[in-house]
């Protein structure tokens, strides 16, 4: 079981609501994935309407909402968006996304650190979307982040774990859950992240744009479970061939 702040999760597959062809297909796919944490873009939700179509379709299962700040360009806008989200969706969880760059949607580390510090002080459970930067992860921990969400590859690129070497360092050093976000394009990528020891993965595009999103959601669910199981079981390393060298410990025998 994964614990973030006061919530526990059976499923280590976090998902998103964007890019589905319809709300009902989204509902079928997310229910099939057995996900328990779903990120919702604040900008997509109709906050004035108590019966927002997308939110309506997420009801009826043990699904927590993770509002995200997608669209904001700096810390100030992010804090404002988070406060709106807390009020509208009645959760203090916030996925902090600050990408001033509209092309690749790459996260701004400086604004993200500032916003995390401020939001943590305001009582938010902050899950920031960041580059796979181990030092930034430690700085975020120091200011009270609840988790870190390093990217595997540019968002929506489906390229897999291009940042693997850095993800390994982050996972090794982290005191908060590490959720690999962005770039996971295939169940095998998700399994690989879990085998490395990631606490969870967040997958959206790969499920939403699959030819059959429901089958793909199930495939991701199984991959995440398999990867986690393999991590816990202890992976064997690739065998290295022995190299003859002069003995270092023979002095102990004389």
């Amino acid at each position, binding site marked *: 079981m994964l614990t973030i702040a006061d919530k526990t999760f059976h499923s280590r597959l976090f998902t998103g609501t964007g890019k589905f062809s319809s709300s009902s297909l989204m509902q079928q796919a997310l229910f099939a994935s057995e996900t328990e944490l779903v990120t919702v873009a604040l900008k997509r939700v109709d906050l004035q309407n108590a019966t927002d179509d997308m939110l309506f379709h997420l009801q009826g299962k043990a699904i927590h909402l993770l509002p995200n700040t997608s669209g904001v360009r700096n810390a100030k806008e992010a804090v404002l968006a988070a406060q709106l989200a807390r009020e509208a969706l009645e959760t203090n969880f916030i996925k902090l996304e600050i990408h001033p760059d509209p092309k690749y949607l790459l996260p701004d580390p400086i604004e993200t650190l500032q916003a995390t510090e401020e939001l943590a002080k305001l009582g938010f459970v902050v899950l920031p979307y960041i580059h796979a930067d181990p030092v930034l992860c430690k700085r975020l921990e120091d200011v009270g982040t609840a988790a870190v969400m390093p990217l595997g590859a540019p968002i929506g690129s489906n390229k897999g774990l291009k940042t693997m070497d850095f993800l*390994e360092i982050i996972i090794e050093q982290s*005191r908060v859950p590490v959720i690999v976000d962005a770039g996971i394009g295939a169940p095998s990528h998700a399994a690989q992240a879990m085998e490395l020891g990631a606490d969870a993965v967040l997958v959206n595009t790969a499920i939403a744009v699959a030819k059959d999103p429901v089958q793909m959601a199930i495939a991701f669910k199984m991959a995440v479970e398999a990867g986690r199981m393999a991590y816990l079981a202890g992976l*064997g390393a690739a065998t*290295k061939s022995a190299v003859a060298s002069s003995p*270092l*410990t023979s*002095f*102990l025998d004389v």
Partner: protein
Amino acid sequence: MSSFFDIFQQYDWDQTKAEIYAKTAQDVRQALLSPRRSLEDFKALISPAALPFLEDMAQLSHKLTQKRFGKTIQMYIPLYLSNECTNICTYCGFSLDNKVRRKTLTEQEIMKEVQVIKDLGYDHVLLVTGEANQTVHTEYFLKVLRLIRPHFSQISMEIQPLDKEEYGALIPEGLHSVLVYQETYHQEDYRKHHPKGKKSNFRYRLETPDRAGQAGVHKIGLGVLIGLEDWRTDSFFTALHLRYLEKTYWQTKYSLSFPRLRPFSGGLPPKVEMGDKELVQLICAYRLLDEELELSLSTRETEKFRNHCIPLGITSISAGSKTNPGGYTAATDSLEQFEISDERTPAQIADMIGRQGYEPVWKDWDKAF
């Protein structure tokens, strides 16, 4: 404020010990092959099951150490400032109940010692004291640091545990590293060996690296006194402590020592003996757990053993050490903390290191930092 104490309390000594002794050859093989070793792997590597794999561990340790540190060995030397002590420690020559003459060096005496140490070639120094808070206190340390800072590039301290604010006050005056050994993580045995004095507070000592880390000390040294308790279990707790500190105070470096209990006049014999093989095993196990860790070996160990340890994973070594205040200028050894085994001069040790294809390093920091 959370501290290592919170984590420590989740572990049971006897259960941990049983888990270490239950490790099998298969567990050791898996630990050797693992690209990132866990504390479970460490348990296997320090277990009796790993002894047949000692040469494999040594080869791996040798390679990992060279990858990170190159072919260099850092030289260090202790400067004992005082043997005054208000603690009773059953194994220590400075113990309150040990009838020896007590001495705290004056500024003039310190400068005489500094001159000898500098003439030996040293540029790093380790200041050592007992615990006598009435006379050897933060004010005294500030005075000493201001006095000797112009003469050294790096100053480490192995003194009584201090508060965070006290460490904070010493850092701008030149304090670089804090060495604080838990002696043993076995709480009942700790109580037995430290019946009197401030040191009898197990938790305060256990949380000392937390306070040093919070103050922003550059490097923290850990260790246990090998021989007080089962060294395998104690070493596991040291590794647990290390992993916690590395994750929490991530801007700090860490070093480890493995002092084996040495005789002193009137002291206890070790409860648990550790042979040379086991010490090599422990050195290699720490290296396999942590490539960045500094591992140091003191003059407690014999000449032969120290010679052979150079390529095994050690990164720093002392030479020419005196363990009594005024030892470098006075002829007598009567006030010493423990007997040393390797009596060679720093020049002889440097020569021995050089002949093995390593470079002895005398300066690896600058006071400008």
